[in-house]
């Protein structure tokens, strides 16, 4: 992103509101150097660090700084790092630990009333306040200093089998919170809350709520659209200059059996641009029309300030779970590139809008349809990364087949109504994609599987995890493996990096532990 202009135009509005304590809001508009102030590091979602203290010529001497064990489940959260303190979460839990030593400063535990505890992606911070979602549908605000609860608000209805897993994103005075859950047929939505009071500012439903609403012509009736799913499982990205929020949406409901939702089922499995002040939609692009494979499109929409045919362009890239890499103009959603990043067999072609055309024969069948990717997807929620230095978009990918079955043959199926079974994963790898063309520049296969989040740095490095529990540093230009450390459990999140006292740290989660590696000041 072009940061100087952004800082001039927007940071002035909010600078100085919180004094020197907590998170200085200007940090939200700067490249992450001594701070990792939000889930993706910055609003672009590229998870690229300009730091070079650790680089491809010295990464061999990267060494362990500390590790911290929570003793509570697996960590899938990307930690935030603010003023030398790391803040991260697991379902019902938040911790603050010293970013230099791993010493615990505080630990908050939420008394749960239920919900799926599959994972929590992390926290959001605004000034002196921290926000996170609980599995039992609460948005909780804590005091950053001591982890004491300030308030909690209901973000969803647990009785409808919604739950919370997403990290909130802070944009000026908005706490943007997604919602999770695909057991019952309920509508997905994205909400914005006041960071001080927790009052709801707006709520945008991912599926139309009545006939005549945008997208309602892609559903057979109101009952279908009002229960059409489209959960907001992923943390959005944001362009401050355009003031547009980029949101990816989940699969339609019922998930597998689909007789009662004929049509493209907008705005499920889509990338949508919203105004963060109003929740109004500016444009959309659907990655999987009428998804029947639980693929959704809730991967990270990565903002790239690039060049196409010699012209500077504001772009957004998405490597979707359905196996396709999409490049769009992020001012208007116009498609520029659609290209598979692993071989797939479910689409008959690409339509004039750049959208794959589903092959009816590869939708779930009573006697089974052999489909690739499988339900796990060609990629999944672990974050990809984009390096403006190499021009490559890096994503953890798998090529897998499975058989999709319809179990519920009723004309009005509910819930899932089927699933995929069996098959095999033919391989997992990191794909380095030329963002301008979608072509694979290099592919680094993992010998034993693996698919973790990624981070790239100006030190010509890509950090990620393999299937042998290693944190691995790859050469960003060639994909050559340069360094590793075995963490005893697979990397569960996207790595982060920050520089404190001239030393560059890389922090990653594996199992229930955070691990920090450091390169001392040169």
């Amino acid at each position, binding site marked *: 992103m072009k940061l100087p202009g952004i800082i001039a135009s927007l940071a002035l509005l909010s600078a100085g509101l919180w004094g020197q304590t907590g998170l200085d809001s200007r940090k939200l508009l700067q490249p992450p150097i001594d701070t990792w102030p939000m889930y993706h590091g910055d609003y672009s979602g590229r998870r690229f660090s300009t730091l070079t203290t650790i680089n491809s010529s010295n990464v061999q001497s990267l060494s362990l700084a500390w590790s911290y064990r929570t003793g509570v489940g697996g960590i899938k959260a990307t930690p935030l790092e603010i003023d030398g303190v790391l803040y991260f979460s697991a379902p019902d839990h938040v911790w603050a630990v010293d970013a230099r030593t791993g010493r615990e400063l505080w630990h908050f535990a939420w008394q749960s*009333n*239920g*919900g799926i505890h*599959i994972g929590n992606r992390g926290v959001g911070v605004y000034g002196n306040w921290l926000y996170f979602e609980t599995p*039992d549908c609460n948005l909780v605000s804590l005091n950053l200093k001591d982890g004491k609860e300030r308030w909690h608000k209901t973000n969803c*209805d*647990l*009785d*409808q*089998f919604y739950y919370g897993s997403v990290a909130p994103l802070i944009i000026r005075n908005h706490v943007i919170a997604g919602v999770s*859950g695909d*057991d*019952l*047929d309920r509508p997905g939505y994205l909400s914005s809350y006041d960071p001080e009071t927790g009052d709801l500012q707006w709520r945008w439903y991912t599926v139309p709520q009545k006939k005549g609403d945008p997208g309602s012509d892609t559903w057979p009736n109101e*009952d279908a659209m009002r*229960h059409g799913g489209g959960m907001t499982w992923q943390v959005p990205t944001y362009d401050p200059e355009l003031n547009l929020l980029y949101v990816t949406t989940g699969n339609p409901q019922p998930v597998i059996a689909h007789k009662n939702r004929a049509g493209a089922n907008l705005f499920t499995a889509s990338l949508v641009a919203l105004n963060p002040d109003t929740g109004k939609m500016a444009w959309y692009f659907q990655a999987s029309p009428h998804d029947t494979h639980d693929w959704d499109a809730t991967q990270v929409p990565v903002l790239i300030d690039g060049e196409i045919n010699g012209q500077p362009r504001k772009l957004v890239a998405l490597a979707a779970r359905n196996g396709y890499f999409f490049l769009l103009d992020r001012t208007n959603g116009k498609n520029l590139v659609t290209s598979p990043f692993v*071989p797939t067999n479910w689409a008959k072609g690409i339509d004039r809008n750049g959208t794959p055309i589903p092959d009816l024969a590869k939708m779930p*069948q*009573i*006697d*089974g349809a*052999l489909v*690739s*990717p*499988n339900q*796990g997807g060609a990629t*999944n929620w672990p974050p990809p990364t984009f390096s403006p230095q190499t021009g490559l978009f890096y994503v953890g990918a*798998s090529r*897998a*087949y499975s*058989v999709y*079955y319809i*179990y519920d043959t009723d004309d*009005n199926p*509910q*819930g*899932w*109504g089927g*699933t*995929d*079974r*069996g*098959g*095999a*994963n*033919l391989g*997992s790898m990191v794909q380095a994609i030329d963002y301008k063309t979608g072509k694979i520049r290099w592919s680094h296969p*993992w010998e*034993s*599987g*693996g*698919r973790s989040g990624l981070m790239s740095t100006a030190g010509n490095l890509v950090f990620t995890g*393999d*299937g*042998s529990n*290693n944190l*691995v540093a790859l050469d960003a230009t060639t994909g050559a*493996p340069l360094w*590793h450390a075995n963490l005893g459990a*697979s990397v569960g999140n996207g790595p982060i990096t920050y520089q404190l006292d001239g030393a560059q740290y890389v922090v990653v989660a594996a199992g229930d532990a955070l691990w920090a590696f450091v390169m001392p000041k040169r």
Partner: protein
Amino acid sequence: MAIAQSVLLCLAAAGIAAAQEPAPSPSLAQSRQVVQKVCGVCHTPESVITGGRTRAQWQETIDKMITAQGAKGTPEEFATVLDYLSSQYGPASSGSTPGGRGGRGRGAAPGGMLAGAGPNDKHVVDEAAADRGRKVWAAECIDCHGTYARGTDNGPNLVRSELVLHDRYADKIGPFLQTHKMQSGALGNTLTAAQIGDLAHFIHQRVYDTLRGSPIFVVHNLLTGDPQAGKAYFNGAGGCHNCHSPTGDLKGIASRFDPPALQARFLNPRPLGGRGGRGGRGAGTAESTSPGAKPVTLTVTPPGGPAVTGTPIVFDDFDVSVRDVNGEYHAWKRTPELKVVKNDPYAAHDELLTRYTDKNMHDILAYLVTLK
């Protein structure tokens, strides 16, 4: 309401009295008799044993039984019920796992699905009560709401009803019925409290039966292929006959596996722990378990040294180690000079996955099921 409040006050008073001056506590058997007397009027007490609730949650449930279901008893009896349920079916009890997806809201999640979907205090279905409720449903509800409670042109879908999802033991369904006509033309208030309770169990059962892991999530007929075409593929384009024989290793295979298992096996016959279907993590599937299956091995040849073959323990970009047939462990740092060859007896099956049409898949299965 006034009655309910007085009962609650009595309950609280009973609790305080017990704390201050412990009364001789009834034996477990005596308590069970009280539970049977108070609760057994409407449902089998066994239906509560999967609750796993705290004392406060049990008290809340009892309150609901009193207010919504008209449960009757003395304050002492309700106190005994509360003590019994809290001590025998509290959070630490064996039945304490919150209901998973499917499985009708109780017990551990079936089929390896994620536990914990929905609230901890979700309605737990009493199967016997639901069976009784089915009769009420057939008599008074089915015409408008359909066999599966998914609605018709004449009545809404109750599986998607927020009132139903918020209901616990008819505390919402009961009051709703008081003012609503049923298919006989009678008002819902002509049903007894017990009938309404049974109906609630039946309706919640319909909701849970849409969840993953429920009894309706089963594979149907897979035998749509042409066995002759399957045989031709087996002996021709598929190349299966190069390794397999219907009178040798596959003799009688259809007697050992049902069609879904058989289909899973020929698509990926790796033993459990091999690369399974889930993508990322290399987990196997139970369906692919195969006693005596051939292992994937690595043959590692150090510079100048003898080649060692064994099953991989570590295999990544940096290290490789194997256990050989004698159980000896061998480990190496990977270098350009170290030759590593993977011997995958299932590679041909992987290659076929990229070539099968769905017709090929159905035809092969149709052929294999003839090998009884």
